[in-house]
């Protein structure tokens, strides 16, 4: 195993090239990352990094030990250690080489053997069923010949096994030969039938011929109860007729279904692209009309969006940007929901710079940053911005010495929007950071 150790410097280089940032930025980032994790851990918190793992402090209990030299009992003090539990994503990726292995139950060996036998049974099944059926048929034939009463069932069964009939006939041989002895004592009709059966055996290879012979042989065979057989005889040819057309019909249906599906797909394919282009066009139209109402559009932009209607593929890339950008520049919040939200997020994420001030106040007894915030910005939540602007003057926002000059910064109106809950949420977030 190749145990190459990667130092943090190499990690920094890799991250810098991958994220295309300067090495100094990457170095600072890594330092801050480790510092933040450490800080949180020292504060007793659990640190979770997405797709990587969870860091957690684990307490090792103090334990007793013996000094090897002096045989004195000593207690080792308990201590914390950093436990790391890799995330499922990391775990799976690292374990890739062994991923195909699964726990094996060892004591199930006997069961597995059983299963193998069962499988063998299954393999032998057709043969067994076949021999069973053969014996069944044999007994049935003997019954027919003894009683000459129920010939229909044998025929029906033999019909089912048309394919195997050659082999069945081999089994048939025996009973019929055996029965010859009985026949001598029976009616002449039965002898005739047997002769026919024997001729059957001679031309076993021709199935249909044999069937016909069976059918022909039946009326002679079953003179005793004509009524029963005459009603049931037509069944065999009828069945054979019915099976073949049904097969044909299923094929027909399959063909029809496949054909109709391909036709449907083709139709859909031809109609869909124009439909999407149409929606894009209408979208562009809507955007265009909205912007027209809200603000002036320079003529070049107008040409862009209009040309977009007639060349939808070109419009895809051009018009959304050209139409939306002017909206961003002005402070229009209400028209398009997505764009201002993103710009607000950018505003939140970027560090604020305070250069313009609208007023300044001196701290008196009973002065509060929140009260100032309420007075200037309309809500006490926004005191954090006053604090941020005067960070160099204030050590503790809860305890500001009397006489401190507080400058009230001019804030971006979007940042202190009363109607937007996101602004208040952001201010509260900052509040939580500062008041800890």
């Amino acid at each position, binding site marked *: 195993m190749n145990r190459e150790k990667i130092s943090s410097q190499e990690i920094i280089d890799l991250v810098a090239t991958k994220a295309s940032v300067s090495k100094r930025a990457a170095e600072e980032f890594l330092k801050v990352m480790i510092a933040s994790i450490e800080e949180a851990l020292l504060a007793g918190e659990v640190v979770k990094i997405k797709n990587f793992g969870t860091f957690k*402090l684990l307490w090792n209990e103090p334990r007793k030990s013996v000094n090897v030299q002096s045989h004195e009992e000593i207690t080792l003090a308990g201590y914390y250690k950093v436990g790391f539990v890799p995330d499922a994503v990391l775990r799976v990726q690292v374990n890739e080489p062994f991923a195909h292995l699964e726990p*094996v139950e060892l004591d199930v060996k006997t069961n597995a053997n059983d299963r193998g036998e069962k499988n063998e049974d299954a393999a032998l099944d057709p043969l067994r069923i076949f021999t069973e059926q053969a014996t069944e048929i044999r007994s049935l034939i003997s019954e027919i010949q003894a009683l000459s009463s129920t010939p229909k069932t044998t025929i029906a069964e033999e019909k089912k096994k048309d394919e195997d009939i050659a082999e069945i006939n081999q089994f048939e041989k025996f009973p019929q030969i055996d029965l010859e002895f009985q026949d001598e004592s029976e009616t002449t009709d039965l002898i005739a039938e047997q002769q026919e059966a024997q001729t059957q055996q001679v031309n076993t290879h021709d199935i249909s011929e044999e069937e016909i012979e069976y059918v022909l042989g039946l009326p002679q065979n079953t003179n005793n109860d004509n009524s029963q057989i005459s009603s049931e005889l037509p069944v065999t040819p009828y069945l054979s007729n019915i099976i073949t057309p049904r097969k044909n019909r299923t094929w027909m249906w399959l063909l029809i279904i496949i054909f109709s599906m391909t036709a449907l797909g083709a139709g859909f394919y031809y109609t869909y692209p124009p439909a999407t282009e149409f929606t894009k066009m209408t979208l562009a139209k809507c955007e265009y009309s909205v912007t027209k109402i809200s603000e002036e559009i320079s003529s070049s932009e107008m040409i862009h969006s209009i040309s977009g209607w007639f060349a939808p593929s070109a419009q895809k890339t051009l018009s959304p940007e050209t139409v939306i950008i002017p909206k961003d520049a002005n402070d229009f919040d209400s028209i398009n929901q997505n764009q201002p939200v993103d710009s607000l997020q950018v505003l939140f994420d970027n560090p604020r710079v305070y250069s313009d001030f609208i007023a300044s106040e001196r701290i008196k007894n009973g002065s509060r940053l929140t009260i100032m915030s309420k007075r200037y910005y309309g809500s006490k939540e926004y005191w954090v911005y006053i604090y941020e602007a005067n960070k160099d003057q204030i050590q503790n926002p809860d305890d500001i010495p009397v006489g401190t000059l507080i400058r009230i910064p001019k804030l971006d109106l979007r940042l202190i929007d009363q109607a937007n809950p996101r602004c208040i949420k952001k201010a509260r977030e900052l509040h939580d950071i500062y008041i800890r």
Partner: protein
Amino acid sequence: MNNKELIASMALKMNAPKSLVAVLLETTVITCTELLVDDKTIGFQSFGNFEVRKKEERLSVHPSTQVRTLIPPKLVVNFKQSNILKDKLKDIPHHE
């Protein structure tokens, strides 16, 4: 402290936008994962080492059913804290 909070606190410390921090954190995680998959040991100075260890296959016996199961070998990520971090942790009092 979850991923979001970590990013927030880091952004505050670095005085950088959260989005940048998030991207950097993600790339770091991906880089580390790739290195670990390549069976490399990653050492962060003053923090600790990440390394991949092989857990050998073993036989486990189910205590109640006595069914013996062969557990296949696997590779796991192991973290060992550095002595510097260990010393820092010694200072925290144990309260429970």
